[in-house]
């Protein structure tokens, strides 16, 4: 505790240091006077008495200083002095201060903004207890398609009962728009986003409910009373946050369910948006057939178990599932064994975040470069300023300031600029974040986790220190060693290359970095152009209004009448003025819905158990292709008669026709089916390919079926109850048009809610959102780099010209032509630009490969982009040099010589 008391004493001294000085002064004066008196009494003259007293006392000033230093606050006083001085210097040149602080604020702000996104999305752990134990558990049929992942009910049962590495495991149902449910009983029917889970899912996440309870094993056993859990948002919206909601009944898809719990406000299921209801997934072990991979698994590892141990554990259990459960009708066990099921486990965070990390790191790199350029600019400004203060520094050195003291003072001034820049930068970042989040591709995960929080502030502090040192050390290194001799008269005699080297180096770096950023954004522009010029397979998506309608079993129990209602809706919609065509389908292009199955062709032979390839399946109405503008290449479209009479027909995409039968015409009349117990279906038409998976992916091979089918997928009758309607009208996207559509739908059935209301253009632009986001962000970075770089280059050349005014004057006086002067100045700029471009070119070649996974239709070293950007940058840079060069040419020799 002694040191604490000692520190308290020291602190008290610091606070009362003015009083301390006065006290010491008084004390010493008393001492001197008393001694002087004593000497006087011993008979000395006044003059000698005083001198003797002083001699005995010693150097009072030095001793006073020693006494102060003893308290250990010297550094503090120095810093305080430097800060005061630095602030005064900045106030004296507000122009410099504003430019330097703003430049930094923009650079730091942009970097912080991107870091916030990176931190929220990629770096921050998931907001569940012990998130590192959470894994996504899936199975992949390696022999069929290694990109597919899923869990089946039998895997869940076996993993739950026999795993040695999982604390607990749960599965949840596919979470596409398909799982929206109709909630009725309130004023208007509503589509609510719902999630089906086994009881393990919520307990694996370890989030306790805010009210009531979460599911227990009794909720998801078959035949148990139906229950539901509300999310906080839905509870607020529908029940006005009333706790009495627990125990109430809610009608979901026509079935009454009791509300048993409400989840806390901060609960999010992975990255699911707008989740309203969580329902128990009641799987019946006795009715489970193998290989229905329509679920996803989530598990919590035992403490101490690793992901690879869990993978090995799953690999051990997979054969057990095949032995325990029967294969579905029409599929042999042999087939499943040949599919080569393998474990596919991922840390849960990786499952949520996906591959967006790379994109964010690329942007982080880009904005880091902008920050470097901003630092170079500020360093250059500081260099020029410090150069102007040579006299002041020399004077200080002459008065005894140590090298260290001068360095500290220069650094302190830089630190003030750095700190101000960061404070404003934080403001810039907050504004930029709003813009970023609004602009981010809708697929950007964990967007709600993004914000300015502690790690971001720590990063800000780090980046402030880093940038301050970066631009602050350069003038220190160059000028702190100033010699104590003041140059006679202070004339700027010519210029030494030495003095310009630092500035030219900084500008070279700026040009190089700007080139890298410009080339990166150039490549993104080319990618975007390629994407937008590819034919997506459908026409004018902005005119297509889409929305989903689901006809529940409870409303229309008879499968066969479902298409009648759908056709009635289609007819009502077609009657709306301005509507040119209407169709519907189980999914529309790029909406993310994907349904695959193995498709057998009658004229192919398949080795015993070797599965045919997976195809993308869609269930469409007559007129769907016409409405979307998907061309009919051969054969005919479906008719309503085909649908109602359950005629075994199908259409396929052109790429599938060519793969199997060489030409679309040849494919007509061929027969296909999905399982060996299905009826064969005749191909009646071939339609154009659709890039359903995104513009940068090749079109899938599609098979289109009618919406009512007999003996399909091992079932006697299949009706497509969830469909997306597509309405072509120039009014698509307007609210009044949607009102007309709603009235039309409700005139057929007033209990049908409309969900996922978007134009097809929404899905189309969304499919390119990642590219356009990268493009915009890199574009902004490149524009800032170009602006800062150009300003920096201009500044250096202009300063050099102003320093050489005298030299230029002399040159002109002795007969130099304007052209000579012009080429002198431009030559200096050219030198810097050429080296910068060279370094930048090398840097670009090294760095664009990080972009390559974001590029499409253009290579990372696209010569056209490289050449174009280099020429563009060279022209802009030369223009930046030309302005000061022109001023140099206008120098009047007489004025120039008299100037000093």
């Amino acid at each position: 505790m002694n040191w604490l008391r000692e520190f308290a004493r020291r602190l008290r001294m610091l606070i009362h240091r003015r009083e301390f000085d006065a006290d010491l002064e008084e004390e010493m004066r008393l001492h001197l006077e008393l001694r002087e008196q004593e000497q006087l009494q011993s008979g000395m003259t006044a003059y000698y008495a005083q001198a003797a007293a002083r001699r005995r006392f010693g150097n009072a000033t030095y001793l006073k200083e020693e006494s102060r230093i003893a308290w250990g606050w010297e550094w503090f006083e120095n810093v305080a002095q430097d800060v005061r001085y630095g602030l005064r210097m900045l106030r004296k040149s507000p122009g410099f201060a504003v430019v330097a602080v703003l430049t930094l604020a923009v650079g730091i702000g942009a970097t912080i903004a991107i870091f916030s996104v990176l931190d929220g999305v990629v770096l921050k752990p998931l907001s569940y207890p012990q998130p590192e134990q959470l894994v996504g558990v899936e199975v992949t049929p390696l022999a069929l398609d290694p990109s597919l992942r899923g869990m089946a009910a039998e895997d869940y049962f076996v993993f739950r009962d026999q795993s040695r590495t999982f604390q607990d495991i749960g599965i949840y149902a596919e979470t596409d728009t398909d799982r929206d449910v109709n909630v009725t009983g309130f004023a208007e029917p509503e589509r609510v986003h719902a999630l089906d889970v086994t009881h393990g899912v919520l307990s694996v996440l370890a989030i306790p409910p805010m009210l009531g309870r979460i599911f227990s094993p009794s909720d998801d056993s078959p035949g148990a009373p139906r229950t539901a859990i509300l999310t906080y948002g839905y509870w607020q919206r529908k029940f006005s946050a009333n706790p009495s909601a627990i125990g109430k009944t809610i009608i979901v898809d026509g079935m009454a369910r009791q509300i048993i719990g409400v989840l806390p406000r901060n609960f999010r299921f992975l990255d699911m948006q707008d989740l309203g209801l969580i329902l128990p997934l009641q799987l019946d072990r006795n009715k489970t057939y193998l290989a229905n991979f329509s679920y996803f698994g989530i598990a919590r590892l035992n403490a101490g178990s690793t992901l690879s141990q869990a993978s090995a554990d799953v690999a051990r259990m997979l054969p057990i599932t095949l032995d325990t459960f029967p294969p579905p009708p029409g599929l042999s066990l042999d087939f499943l064994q040949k599919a080569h099921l393998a474990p596919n486990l991922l840390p849960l965070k990786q499952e949520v975040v996906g591959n967006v990390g790379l994109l964010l790191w690329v942007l982080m790199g880009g904005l880091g470069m902008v920050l470097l350029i901003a630092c170079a600019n500020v360093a250059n400004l500081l260099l020029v300023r410090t150069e102007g203060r040579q006299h002041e520094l020399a004077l200080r050195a002459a008065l005894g300031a140590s090298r260290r003291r001068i360095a500290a003072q220069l650094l302190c001034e830089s630190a003030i600029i750095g700190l101000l820049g960061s404070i404003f930068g934080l403001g810039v970042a907050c504004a930029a974040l709003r813009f970023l989040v609004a602009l981010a591709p809708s697929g950007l995960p964990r967007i709600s986790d993004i914000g300015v929080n502690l790690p971001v502030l720590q990063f800000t502090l780090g980046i402030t220190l880093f940038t301050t040192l970066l631009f602050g050390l350069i003038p220190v290194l160059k000028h702190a060693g100033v010699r104590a001799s003041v140059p006679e008269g202070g004339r700027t005699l010519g210029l030494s290359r030495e003095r310009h080297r630092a500035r030219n180096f900084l500008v070279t770096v700026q040009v190089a970095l700007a080139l890298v950023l410009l080339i990166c954004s150039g490549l993104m522009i080319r990618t975007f152009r390629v994407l937008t010029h590819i034919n997506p397979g459908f026409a004018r998506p902005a005119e297509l209004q889409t929305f989903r309608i689901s006809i529940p079993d409870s409303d229309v129990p008879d499968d066969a009448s479902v298409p009648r209602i759908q056709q009635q809706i289609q007819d009502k919609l077609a009657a709306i003025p301005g509507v040119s065509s209407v169709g519907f389908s189980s999914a529309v292009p790029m909406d993310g819905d994907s349904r695959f199955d193995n498709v057998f062709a009658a004229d192919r032979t398949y080795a015993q158990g070797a599965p045919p390839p997976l195809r993308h399946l869609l269930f469409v109405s007559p007129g769907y292709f016409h409405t979307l503008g998907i061309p009919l290449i051969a054969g005919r479209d479906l008719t309503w008669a085909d649908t109602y009479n359950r005629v075994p027909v199908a259409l396929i995409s052109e790429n599938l026709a060519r793969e199997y039968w060489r030409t679309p015409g040849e494919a007509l009349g061929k027969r296909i089916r999905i399982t060996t117990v299905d009826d064969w279906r005749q191909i009646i038409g071939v339609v154009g390919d659709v890039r359903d998976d995104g513009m940068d992916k090749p079109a899938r091979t599609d098979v289109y079926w009618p919406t009512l089918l007999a003996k399909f997928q091992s079932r006697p009758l299949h009706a497509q109850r969830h469909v997306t309607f597509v309405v072509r009208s120039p009014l698509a996207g307007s609210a009044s048009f949607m009102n007309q559509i709603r009235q039309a739908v409700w005139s057929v059935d007033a209990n049908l809610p409309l969900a996922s209301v978007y134009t097809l253009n929404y899905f189309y632009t969304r499919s390119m959102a990642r590219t356009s986001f990268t493009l915009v962000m890199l574009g902004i970075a490149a524009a800032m780099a170009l602006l800062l770089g150009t300003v920096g280059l201009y500044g250096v050349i202009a300063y050099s010209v102003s320093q050489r005014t005298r030299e230029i004057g002399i040159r002109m006086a002795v007969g130099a032509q304007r052209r000579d002067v012009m080429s002198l100045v431009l030559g200096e700029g050219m030198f810097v630009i050429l080296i910068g471009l060279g370094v930048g070119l090398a840097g670009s070649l090294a760095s664009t490969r990080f972009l390559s996974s974001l590029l499409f239709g253009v290579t990372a070293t696209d010569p056209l982009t490289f050449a174009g950007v280099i020429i563009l940058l060279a022209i802009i840079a030369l223009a930046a040099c030309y302005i000061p060069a022109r001023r140099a040419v206008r120098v009047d020799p007489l004025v120039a010589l008299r100037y000093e």
Partner: protein
Amino acid sequence: MHGYEVANSIQRISDDILEVEEGSLYPALQRMLIKGWVTAKWGTTAGNRRARYYQLTASGRKQLDVEMSQFERVIGAITRVIEAV
């Protein structure tokens, strides 16, 4: 005692043998203040002038004992060395 008196008493007690630069007393006093070995209080002298009076604290006295024994050990050692010669 205030500073001047301290300086005088050192000189007097040591019979004018120890005549240090009087001013260096003050930095030393500051260091002792920091350590808490002495406290300072303002008072008035006999000549009715403001002066800062220093007083040894308990921990100062303890430190003095430590220093004394240390000093005695060193002196003793030196004496023994010299006597042995």
